[in-house]
């Protein structure tokens, strides 16, 4: 075909406008020779830098405690000694540091706040989500909050077992993307103990108002999952299939 065949003059001044609005992909960036123009190159670097900083900025316990006044917060560390080891040894991030002592809490439910891959997500969203969640937990006895450094989701299993909980909810910083460095995930595990697998958990992800899920909506979903898990005596695939969940 001729290249001029499609030229019929009603694409408007910027033929890319409609296409750009249909995707967040970085299309039609222009060129400097064969490379990206400086402004586009710097935009990309900025997004990557924000994501990198979200991974590496350390969890600040003072900041998290200050946002949760009046609540008892226990602090633990995983067996991963530092960020580099945490990133390379997921197995260590799933175990408590040697010598960690957690007394039995005499409670049904525990909430673990884990830095995961984005401490920034914890700084920005953990307090808001915890507050919304606690407001929906009438009928549950809740253990002191646990703040966990260098932690993966499964660290909640060992914490839950040590505290003697029936269920544990882990709030964890999710892996930052180029456009979402502060996303918090929530994982519910019934009868937590070491050896639980991912199929035995329920997950609510992308909590990051105003761009992602809001605190109230996420908390409602988690509360409904908890009620379903208590009824079923299990979490994970079985719960997801059987419970009618809002949102």
């Amino acid at each position, binding site marked *: 075909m001729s290249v001029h065949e499609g030229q019929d003059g009603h694409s408007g001044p910027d033929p890319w406008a409609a296409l750009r609005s249909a995707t967040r992909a970085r299309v039609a960036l222009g060129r400097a020779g064969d490379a990206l123009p400086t402004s586009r190159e710097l935009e990309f670097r900025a997004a990557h830098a924000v994501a990198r900083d979200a991974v590496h900025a350390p969890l600040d316990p003072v900041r998290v405690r200050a946002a949760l006044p009046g609540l008892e917060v226990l602090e633990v560390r995983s067996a991963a000694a530092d960020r580099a080891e945490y990133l390379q040894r997921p197995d260590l991030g799933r175990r408590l540091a040697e010598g960690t002592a957690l007394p039995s809490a005499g409670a049904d439910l525990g909430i673990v706040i884990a830095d995961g891959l984005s401490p920034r997500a914890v700084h920005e969203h953990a307090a808001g989500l915890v507050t919304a969640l606690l407001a929906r937990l009438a009928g549950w006895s809740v253990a002191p909050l646990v703040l966990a450094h260098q932690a993966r989701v499964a660290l909640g299993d060992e914490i839950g077992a040590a505290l003697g909980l029936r269920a544990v909810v882990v709030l964890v910083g999710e892996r*930052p993307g180029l456009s979402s460095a502060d996303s918090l995930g929530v994982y519910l595990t019934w009868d937590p103990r070491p050896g639980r697998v991912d199929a035995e958990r329920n997950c609510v992800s992308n909590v990051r108002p105003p761009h992602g899920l809001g605190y109230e909506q996420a908390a409602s979903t988690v509360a409904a999952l908890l009620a379903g898990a208590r009824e079923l005596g299990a979490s994970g695939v079985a719960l997801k299939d059987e419970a009618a969940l809002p949102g």
Partner: protein
Amino acid sequence: MTVRRTTLGGHTFEFASLADLLARATPHRSGDVLAGCAAGSAAERVAAQSVLADLPLATFLEEQVVGYDEDDVTRLILDTHDRAAFAPVASLTVGEFRDRLLAWAAAGDEPAISALAPGLTPEMVAAVSKLMRNADLVAVGRRARVVTGFRSTIGLPGRLASRLQPNHPTDDPLGVTASILDGLLHGSGDAVIGINPATDSPAQTVALLELVDAVIQRYGIPTQSCVLAHVTTTLRALERGAPVDLVFQSVAGTQAANRGFGVTLDLLAEARAGALALGRGTVGRDVMYFETGQGSALSADAHRGVDGRPVDQQTLEARAYGVARHFGPLLVNTVVGFIGPEYLYDGKQVLRAGLEDHFCGKLLGLPMGVDVCYTNHAEVDPDDTDALMLLLGAAGCSFVIAVPGSDDVMLHYQSLSFSDVLTARQVLGLRPAPEFEEWLARMDLLGPDGRVRDLPADAPTTRALLAAARP
């Protein structure tokens, strides 16, 4: 089990099995530490390499890393081994094999290197790669010629193709189209226009196949489409009469890992037969597309071999190529930085792994490409991926993956951009696949200097292509 030992720096090092020896000889990477099979010291690593260098290549035909009786990948590898093709190197040790390959490469003897493929096992190729430096991997890799075809020809000398990856988080047709058009305007897409669907369902797969097929038909583009759904989903799409060019599947180097992917060798054969029956290729009939990546077996806890001992991730990766080559693929690529820093931690490890994978794939006869990529929690940045891209271009890599602005908005990782591919071609004097290059010229997208033109948005060619976005 044969215990092998050597002395280095006053210490005696013992290697209890072939799997241990290969693992200890592997350049350092986080995944092998995680698996518990890495060398405990720099000296132990070189000691293992020394023992490996003296090992006869034929050992790998007698002694297994993953057991024959337990694993169908091992059976496939050994049952299809071609002793006649192996003959030219049958008497060599692994170290002598390295020397021979480098001599052939320096002499430009592509036929000698390329003819070995059916006589080599993945373990042999992995072993010799562990003795090679990065430049060795480049020098030999570029002399292993593998040419495949469907509507475009992949792997010719002096060519670098690209997969245009127009992913969208909700498979929105207009959003996918936007990325396709941006890629085409940058001269990308000669290897395949390949979409990772957000939803792995037959209906969605059919819809995306029809979308890409319509673009290809409308502009007569000499390339192929692929929706990278699970092979069972593609089988359903075939049953519905969808325009399937290529059958995609992720594969790994052990039967257990493939089971984790929900794949059997029989399923792959069935899907291949289905796509072949459609006869949609023009310049060739290679209809399979595979992706692999170091660490995939470990992440599925399916990385153990004889006596339950962990096998290093690079040897397992080469075994995945043993699966892939059985099905005569058009394209194979390793996704080298995708799986995370617990497998390849930093730019140095990703660079090395990308070159190893390209070398091993090519030596085993595969049309090897690389997804040069990283996640935000790895110690990797675009300077690292630039280095790997340019080295792969020098190594004669068949194709790379390209996404708009390096940002895959569906899979949330960074790969090469369309511009990066242009840069690699410019710097290294490489060209697109020949059929696709002719199409670019027909579309007025190719300048007189052979480079893809930088056209304004209101140029006739741009407007002609963007017209595809209108229903």
